[in-house]
């Protein structure tokens, strides 16, 4: 067993990476699906094993690829923070891939199925890789793998606008990727290493140089583009709206979350106290951007006609919450940001799966087409209601836990006014969720449509994610514990900001 654990880090990447081309060789929809599901389940099993190991006080040995010395080779290093992210990623995928079968058959032409699953797996591999790798350049490589496959996935949406959405994302994403690469290049120039561990020791010595400052700027802005922090969010709404349902659910729950993780790691572990201490004004600026993101995203969400787009704008607001927690400068805030990353992934993933159910039955997610749907698809609508409550942050749902920590973080930082703003913003979520609920339960359909409840193969995975928002709202200990430990790890590695 110990042998397997030793190799688990690399298997997390190798298994899906090998499965993807194999799928293309098979050229068969069902087989591809089975392989994708198996790969994601394997990764889930692996991640949970590693998380348990670390939570229990153990360690995962650093994996040297090809046995090369860390200074020249690539290492995979698993600690509490990325074990947490890996578990989230593979958990979401394990559910979404199961769901994909029925939804993909409905939304994507049969001939492209194997390409779809291959791209999905590649995207998954890239995201897992960004989380697990201990090498700065490797982060960029995996970022590009996940982004390129992501563009392809989004472009497979039925609506022709999916193409322009993907194109726009391509431009923005490439910009972001290039910025990150530039930043990494600058760091390499100064320190002569790409290993994250070594970088974190070396960078503080050069903190005063303008090259390192430029690297900081490039990496921060680059990840913020991928993360869709206001005002770099313009690519996001169209992507989530026009992508195939499975892709919306998958990307909304994973892609921005991993970018956020990279931002955390870069800020706390690479640059750390040395650099940011000089830049208090930078933190205030980030709080300001996060707040605008929260309010702009929520207000825009209120005005949307299409629920998928509404959820996309809500995502921008939620990303604002995470960045807010990051910039609060204390343990509670950072814990809030990390646990919100997890909780929001479950909630938003679940809600987009619900959208997939509507897409399957109604071919639309417009609010006016959802009028009166509460009677026709009660279970689907109930799932939306629960997910919506979690998005609002009602107690006993996962959303409450993150709001609680963010609010505590604001109090710890002595910012009473911020507490008020956070709570006010969650009222905006009440408004946009209830707009959908009112339409679904009170609206009268324009024409009597003859739809029935979504099939079990869609409902079951949906309820797994939606149910988990309640589960993790009550039995918070395992994930909250991991989030707290991650926050402590981040804060201790660079000293307090």
């Amino acid at each position: 067993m110990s042998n397997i654990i030793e190799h688990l880090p690399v298997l997390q990447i190798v298994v899906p990476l090998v499965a993807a081309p194999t799928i293309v060789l098979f050229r068969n929809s069902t087989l591809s699906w089975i392989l994708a599901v198996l790969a994601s389940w394997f990764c889930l099993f692996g991640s949970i094993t590693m998380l348990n190991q670390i939570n229990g006080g153990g360690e995962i040995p650093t994996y040297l690829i090809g046995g090369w010395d860390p200074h020249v080779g690539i290492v995979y290093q698993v600690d509490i923070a990325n074990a947490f992210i890996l578990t989230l990623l593979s958990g979401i995928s394990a559910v979404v891939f199961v769901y994909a079968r029925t939804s993909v058959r409905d939304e994507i032409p049969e001939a492209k199925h194997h390409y779809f699953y291959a791209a999905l797996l590649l995207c998954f591999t890239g995201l897992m890789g960004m989380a697990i790798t201990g090498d700065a350049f490797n982060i960029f490589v995996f970022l590009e793998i996940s982004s390129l496959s992501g563009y392809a996935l989004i472009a497979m949406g039925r609506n022709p606008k999916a193409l322009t959405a993907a194109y726009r994302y391509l431009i923005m994403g490439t910009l972001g990727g290039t910025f990150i690469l530039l930043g990494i290049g600058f760091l390499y120039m100064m320190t002569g290493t790409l290993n994250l561990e070594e970088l974190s020791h070396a960078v503080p010595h050069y903190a005063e140089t303008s090259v390192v400052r430029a690297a900081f700027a490039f990496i921060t802005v680059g990840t913020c583009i991928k993360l869709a922090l206001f005002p770099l969010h313009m690519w996001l709404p169209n992507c989530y709206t026009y992508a195939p349902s499975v892709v919306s659910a998958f990307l909304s729950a994973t892609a921005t979350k991993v970018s956020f993780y990279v931002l955390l790691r870069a800020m706390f572990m690479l640059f750390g106290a040395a650099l940011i201490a000089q830049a208090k004004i930078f933190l205030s600026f980030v709080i300001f951007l996060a707040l605008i993101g929260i309010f702009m995203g929520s207000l825009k969400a209120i005005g949307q006609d299409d629920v998928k787009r509404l959820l996309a704008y809500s995502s921008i607001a939620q990303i604002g919450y995470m960045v807010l927690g990051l910039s609060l400068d204390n343990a509670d805030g950072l814990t809030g940001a990390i646990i919100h990353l997890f909780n929001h992934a479950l909630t938003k993933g679940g809600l987009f799966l619900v959208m997939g159910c509507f897409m399957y039955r109604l071919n639309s997610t417009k609010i006016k087409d959802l009028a009166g749907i509460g009677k026709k698809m009660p279970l689907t609508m109930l799932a939306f209601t629960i997910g919506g409550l979690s998005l609002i942050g009602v107690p006993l749902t996962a959303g409450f836990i993150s709001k609680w920590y963010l609010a505590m973080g604001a109090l710890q930082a002595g910012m009473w006014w911020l507490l008020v703003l956070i709570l006010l913003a969650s009222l905006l979520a009440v408004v946009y969720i209830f707009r959908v609920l009112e339409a679904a339960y009170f609206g009268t359909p324009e024409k009597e449509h003859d739809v029935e409840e979504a099939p079990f193969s869609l409902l079951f995975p949906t309820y797994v994610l939606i149910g988990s928002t309640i589960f993790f709202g009550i039995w918070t200990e395992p994930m909250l514990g991991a989030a707290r430990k991650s926050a402590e790890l981040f804060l201790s590695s660079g000293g307090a900001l």
Partner: protein
Amino acid sequence: MMILLPILIPLCTALLIQVLGRIASDNVRDGAHTLMAIVNFYFVLQIVPLVLNGERPEFFIAEMLPGAPIYFQVEPLGMLFALVASGLWIPTSVYAFGYMRGHHEKNQTRFFTCFALAIGFAIGVAFSGNLITLFAFYEALTFSTFPLVTHHQDADAKRSGRIYIGILVSTSVCLLLSGVLSVWYLTGTMDFTLGGIIAGKVDDPFIVSVLLALFAFGTAKAALVPFHKWLPNAMVAPTPVSALLHAVAVVKAGVFTILKVSIYIFGFELLSSVNDWLMAIAAITILFSSCVALTLDNLKARLAYSTISQLAYIVLGAAMANPIAAMGAALHIVMHAVGKITLFFCAGAIFVGAHKKYVSQMDGLGHKMPWTMAAFTLASFSIIGLPPFGGVWSKWYLCLGALEAGQVIYLVTYMLSSLLSIGYLMPIVARAYFRKPSEHDEEHVHEAPWMCVLPLCITAVGSVLLFFFASPIRELLLPIFEGGVQ
């Protein structure tokens, strides 16, 4: 485990109703509802002897936040509230059976499901062992009653639903949650402790006042002015909802929260240093809403404003920060619940039997609906606070409490309000008995179905019995006040 049953049984009942609604006839479904209500009351009664013996049974669910678990503990005040909610669930379930049938309401399965859920959450509020659990169930109660308020699903229901959710959620999120967060931040604990947890940790009277305001206004279910508007608007709901939820479970969850917070979080000593403005607001609420009630012709709206004023009795009792007034406040939770539920039952029975909503149409009803109007009369006396009805005891303690606090002005408020309640309740009784029914009514008005009439007779008799059997309740509560009540 035993104390979990009264919360779990209603939640399971909701599930059972969903299942029976699909596979069995309506009568089976509603029969099961009543049966479960009885079973639930039985299990609540099982806990009473324990609490009387001085035990505080508790149950731990999960460590939701480190140091702030989801956790239940039964103490006398919560016991009392759970008894009221679960006890009155039985007559209401029978009444709802008759009312929903007599009125040919749609979506009865959803109705009974949400109804059972709301009871479960109300008992969850009663048994909460700390602030965060209380807050969680308080919110759950809001959301589970939303489908009940908007039951008719028309434009009116939609508008009222918005006001309902709008006021209750925005106050609880912005004010109550801030209060809970601040208490946690300032004291590091959220457990209900006799004598309060804030004293000694926060000294600045300004901050204590702000905290008190966050709790008093954040608990909009207690309907203090200016956050009272949701209550009259919630009257679009079917009458059983108005009766049990908006006269008993929901609003009482509000005043219960305020009473509990004032005893277990602030403590009388600290509270008495900052309570001036809260007493004033409560007194204003009492007089203002009584006056509004005088002007209303719609019977349910009039009762709704009467409820607002009676709730403020309890808030005023809590705010006076002495054991006698608090005892009166706790007693008033029971006495008002039994009286007001009867009045609402009557309003619904009049609607079913005579299709009348307005006081001005009720001439001569006493001759055509003798049982209903008799019950209405008895319950009115109890609300006004005349002997021999239960309402007299709570008012007695509240008035004594006002004297104890040295606040003669609030004694006068209580007295004045009693006069006003005579003013808005007695004309209805007088019309019903001393005027002749119109010819049309002579032919078309009759008693509501027995399933509506029986429960309201039982609760009316209950309000008389409470006069004679108030002392067990007093004994149950006494330990909280450490012999401060003679």
